[in-house]
């Protein structure tokens, strides 16, 4: 599981397999949100890389900015409230943030597809599954007539192991079970042959056995097509099963990143530790981490220092005043980093 250590700048999180092509590199992404209560820095300097064939997990409580990060990447943030104010999103070397809406539409679905959390609501209830897949196909794959598109849609359904896809294609979402719906969403995502699939908590609403089946399906798809998967979740268990690398986000920032095993074995950030603790103690689906004292921070009026400070048992004055830099965690993984002043102490103590 340990990967060859490389000399990389500390501020960058690496998640590359040696063989994979670097598909996506996000640098210092910042998104601001205007709310009734004032400005919210929903995404505040997030960076990561994603290679083909790789699965990167992003973990955090709800409101930590993980979904906003990927939405910003694809520029589908809720307008006009949200603004992407800085950073770069390099997809195969091209900065997506410099592209216009038209060009972005060619990226969305075609290059980077997404699976949303709740299949109950993410499929349009008034159109058939076939319709919804064919629509995407027609937008991105103009080759072939209507019949060819329908054929492709059937293929996509077959790929996600939906039985009798020729019939299912005429079904409306409400005629399918939750698991099947989420597979259909998966079919929709892979139908146009994207290189990256962003899966935003795709299994949250499924029960455990279906969840396992679904994860297996994703892994198989990845093996077959060499997809890169960006997997957003608040569930360490899933990350452990699926990902090699992960980012832990808190209040719009990456607080810890690194290989899954390294983070599991040696969680450096108190927040990560608390998250892991809650996995052990509570059921894995807990959306709110009861184990951590205090509430997730309201996203406005954040402390100027470490955002976790108000809930952190170790917080001191410095934590409250100054945001800690990203520091390397001293363990076997070279790319394990975290943002915590206590890390500096441990560095200094050495």
């Amino acid at each position: 599981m340990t990967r060859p250590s490389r000399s990389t700048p500390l501020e960058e999180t690496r998640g590359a397999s040696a063989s994979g092509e670097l598909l996506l590199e996000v640098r210092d992404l910042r998104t601001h949100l205007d709310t009734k209560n004032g400005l919210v820095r929903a995404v505040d300097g997030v960076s990561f890389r994603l290679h083909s064939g790789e699965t990167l997990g992003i973990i955090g409580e709800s409101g930590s900015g993980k979904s906003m990060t990927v939405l910003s990447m694809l520029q589908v943030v809720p307008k006009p409230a949200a603004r992407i104010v800085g950073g770069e999103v390099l997809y195969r070397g091209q900065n997506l943030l410099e592209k216009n809406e038209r060009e972005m539409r060619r990226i969305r679905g075609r290059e980077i597809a997404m699976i949303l959390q709740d299949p109950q609501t993410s499929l349009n209830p008034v159109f058939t599954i076939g319709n919804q897949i064919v629509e995407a196909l027609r937008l991105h794959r103009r080759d072939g007539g209507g019949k060819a598109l329908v054929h492709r849609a059937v293929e996509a359904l077959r790929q996600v192991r939906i039985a009798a896809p020729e019939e299912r294609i005429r079904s409306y979402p409400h005629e399918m079970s939750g698991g099947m719906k989420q597979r259909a969403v998966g079919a929709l995502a892979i139908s146009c042959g994207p290189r990256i699939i962003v899966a935003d908590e795709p299994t949250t609403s499924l029960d455990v056995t279906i969840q396992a089946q679904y994860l297996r399906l994703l892994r198989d798809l990845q093996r077959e097509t060499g997809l890169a998967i960006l997997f957003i979740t608040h569930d360490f268990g899933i990350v452990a099963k699926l990902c090699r690398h992960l980012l832990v986000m808190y209040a719009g920032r990456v607080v810890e990143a690194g290989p899954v095993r390294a983070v599991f074995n040696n969680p450096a950030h108190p927040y990560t530790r608390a998250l892991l603790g809650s996995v052990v103690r509570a059921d894995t689906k807990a959306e709110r981490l009861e184990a951590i004292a205090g509430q997730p921070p309201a996203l406005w009026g954040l402390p100027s220092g470490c955002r976790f400070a108000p809930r952190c048992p170790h917080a001191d004055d410095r934590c409250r005043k100054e945001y800690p830099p990203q520091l390397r965690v001293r363990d076997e993984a070279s790319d394990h980093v975290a943002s915590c002043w206590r890390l500096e102490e441990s560095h200094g103590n050495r």
Partner: protein
Amino acid sequence: MRRFLAIRFLQALVALLAITLIVFGLTHLTGSPVDALLPDDASQAQIESLIRHWGLDRPLHEQYLAFLGNALQGDLGVSLKWRGYTAMEVVLQRLPATLKLGGLSVLLSIVVAIPLGVVAARHRGTMVDKSANVVALLGQSLPQFWLGIMLIWIFAVGLGWFPTSGQGGLPHMILPAIAMASFQVAALARLTRSAMLDSLRSEYVKLARLKGVPEYRIVWKHALRNAAIVPLTYFGLLAGSLLTGSVVIESVFSWPGTGLLSIEAIRGRDYPVVQAVVILFAVVFLLINYVVDALYALVDPRIRRA
């Protein structure tokens, strides 16, 4: 489901019965047709003979029971004012005109209100949204008869685009339909707007965006198709306002529908016709509400297949 419909049906029947009682009582309290239909110098003898002829000398409850008995057999009596016709015939003669006008006005209000609502939702909180709201409200802020007269003066007399009034084809219907529709636009546009807001916030719209679907398709196809259900329910409520509107609008435009008929019938104390109009409209009201349920199912496959 069937049981539910059956119960609804029975309750509707009871409501209908109550309606006949109210209408019967109220119309008979308003005075006698002999006072309305006979000339000024009708003699006492003539009046009394007609009172007997029309059966108005019998006790009220007897008249009501007789009316009810006949009504159950589909006979609402003969018109006192339009002699030679039954009350139902008189009303049915005029009903198509009202339905045509009402239908066109509903269509017009949809054509105007839905885009207004959609655009307002799309540009929520901006000046566009606010102006759309004010535009929609404008039509609801003028007395309908006044708007009708203005339309006649501007478009029929001034510009000569449409005929001023009366029965006829589509050209005759445009102005009254606009006057009638103006009232519904605001409510419909606002309903569309709020439904669209919900729809645009939904996950499936997000997913459509993530699929690379162009914005206009997202708004007009994905979101609107879902949002359209909410304004549809409004049409059930519209039935009542349709008649209210038609009474005024039909007078202004001399449109020989049931609205105009009902004024004439009340002025003439033509009880059978008044009763027929009200009963018919109550039935239509209930019917429309059923139709709305059916339409609901048509737009929303979740209900259709349920």
